[in-house]
């Protein structure tokens, strides 16, 4: 869901007529929805106000439902009627990372992107004649619209400052850009590391021969020295 709207539309058009590709995309959305669900559950755990706790929990439930809907449809597009594969995801505790106000700004931005992108997917699937997937996106878009609205209202009511939304949004935009940079850095470092380690591995051939000689695999039970020395005779006796 981190696509530019235009890219998202192009992607939607490219997958809408290819069920397997569509299934892969829906599985990714399921993962993202599950990440959102965890973020909101954690927020509900941290917040003291029962009202806001209920708000976050309600959205968590809807994100969970969206994730399931995406998973189920992905399975159907793959040709399996009833399977719902497990979905693991990486999620961040944004309440702790950003604080509640900025987390709400993050939610607003995320949901806004989702509305724009999912609308594109809805239209693309509709044009491709896949009414079922289009209806799925249409239903989710409607709920995401609500998710997009309430964070702004909540920021206003929590801060009583008309400029708070703008400030929080700007901060979150910068934070997201920095996070993207870090992820890119991690990816590059990962490539370098893998390359380096593979080279190192090639150099370990002599060591591997030595290890096989001095540390061969041992089969069966090996008696512990402590047991052989002390306990066995006593227990038998």
């Amino acid at each position, binding site marked *: 869901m981190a696509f530019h709207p235009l890219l998202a539309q192009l992607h939607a058009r490219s997958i809408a007529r290819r069920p397997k590709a569509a299934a892969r995309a829906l599985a990714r959305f399921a993962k993202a929805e599950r990440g959102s669900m965890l973020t909101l559950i954690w927020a509900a755990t941290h917040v003291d106000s029962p009202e806001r706790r209920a708000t976050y929990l309600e959205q968590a*439930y809807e994100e969970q439902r969206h994730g399931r809907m995406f998973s189920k449809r992905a399975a159907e597009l793959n040709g399996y009627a009833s399977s719902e594969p497990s979905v693991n995801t990486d999620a961040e505790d944004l309440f702790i990372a950003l604080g509640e106000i900025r987390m709400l700004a993050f939610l607003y931005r995320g949901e806004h992107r989702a509305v724009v992108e999912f609308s594109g997917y809805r239209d693309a699937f509709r044009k491709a004649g896949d009414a079922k997937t289009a209806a799925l996106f249409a239903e989710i878009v409607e709920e995401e619209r609500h998710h997009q609205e309430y964070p702004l209202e909540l920021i206003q009511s929590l801060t009583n400052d008309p400029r708070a939304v703008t400030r929080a949004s700007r901060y979150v935009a910068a934070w997201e850009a920095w996070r993207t940079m870090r992820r890119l850095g991690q990816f590059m470092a990962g490539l370098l590391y893998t390359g380096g380690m593979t080279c190192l591995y090639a150099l370990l051939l002599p060591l591997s021969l030595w290890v096989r000689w001095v540390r061969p695999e041992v089969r069966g039970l*090996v008696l512990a020295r402590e047991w052989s020395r002390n306990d066995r005779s006593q227990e*038998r006796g």
Partner: protein
Amino acid sequence: MASVLGISGLYHDAAAALVIDGTIIAAMQQERFSRVKHDRALPKDAALSCLRFAGIAPEALDAVIYYEQPFQKLERVLVSTLRGFPQSFRQFPRAMRAQLADKLWVLDAISETLNVPRRRVRAVGHHESHAASAFFPSPYERAAVLTLDGVGEDTTTALWFGNGNTLTPIASTAWPQSLGLFYAAMTAWSGFEVLEGECKLMGLAAFGQPIHREELGRVLLLHETGEFELTLSFFDRFTDTELGFGKRLEQLLGERRDPLIPWDLTTPRDQHYANVAATVQCITEEAVLGLARRASRETGACNLCLAGGIALNAVANARLAKESGFDRIFVQPAAGDAGGALGAAILGSIALGDRRPSAMTSAALGLTASASDTVDLCKHLGLSARRVSDPAESAASLLSENKVVGFVQGRFEFGPRALGHRSIIASPETIAIRDRINSVVKQREPFRPFAPAILADSCSQYFDTEPSDMTAFMTTVASVHASVPTPIDAVLHCDGTARIQTVTADAASGLEAVLRARVRRGEAPILLNTSLNGRNEPIVGSAIDAILFFLAHRVDALIVEDVLVERQT
């Protein structure tokens, strides 16, 4: 007189356990807080919750003990990948990254995360933690101890002798000779997820016949001495660590089952997988039995304690109880890696001069769910909630109407089983209720049974066993009598067995009260008990989790302490 925190983590099922002055105060899995099933992360939330529950600050801890020796683990990983040169070229960077990125520095990370001086953070061996988690909370003064899992530092299987405050190693088997590797590989070959699918493979076994003994006898060789030997060419531990099995195994048994195809045991294809599952179960039981008999010969002990992932195989445990020659067997409810945290904490406590803990009678070592939070949340979510004077009576009344009830009472359980503190309960009479729970909540494969919970004093009316050290924690199965006072079709497996839980007030007072209320109403002292979670979700911990569960799954009612939440039709 010491306060010791045990930590397991960075592999799967991360957990924390707190032992103060030799008493187990709390033990919790990280997944109950993070809501990520089998969460591997360093269990900060679980650790801090243990400390908050006890009302002590991290600085007051005398020791924090991690359940595995990081440098020994690194050595094994290095040696193992080097032995596999050049097939291990893909595994090497991944394995080194995993070790060097966080696992090697875990003791420093624990010190920083919990703000405990580094000198107080130590490590003990993986299998020693398992053995301690099984023996020290057991009711036995002396026992043989058997630990079986995938792999610890280097050990995959170990025999111990527990005597009072001491654990003495007897013998061990080193990686890659591992029953855990065998069972995990067969789980993956059958199309299940490793860590999640082992109990599915066990359930599937009852639907097949063990007709592949010859083939699988070449994969896992069993010796008269109680030792076992894997034929490693059937496994692919260097290039595919997720699946574990190799092409040769597929040549022997056929292709891996596609995980996404729904199960249909009427087809020859799925019957083949059931037959293999039955054979795997049979061979695993014999391997464990051989090791248990060896442990008996070595120690002369009358009692056996089991830990490690394999110890969660309830069917194998039942066979051990019948055939191993031991008088009594104890399997600590969190027998897997989570339990390592408990074992580490106890080892630390004993090393500091404390006595061993008294026998474990309940797995409820987590946090309570707040009734007032439940009421507040329901009010704001527009759910119908009310306080009831007798939650057990309310539950019994709902069960009489064939309702499916989410039941949250007291502290949540430690380990993978819901034992009446975070359970879905229902009347056990008909298959229809089982199917309903499957359709609205669990979405389980058709071959997976639900378990019965029965009043301990009524156990022999339905089952061919008396309450034992294992039945209290649902770690064994029992055969159902041919004729029972009331039907229990919803909890009966196809082979006429059930994974029973015998309920006493000590172990699960809330569930016991419901069963007593059922008896007062003239109903059977037994009910269906399954964990309060949906498919691929961790078991509910807090009131928030319980309400989210109620929103997401169409159970008829939810009882959180004395709050009854009912679905409005």
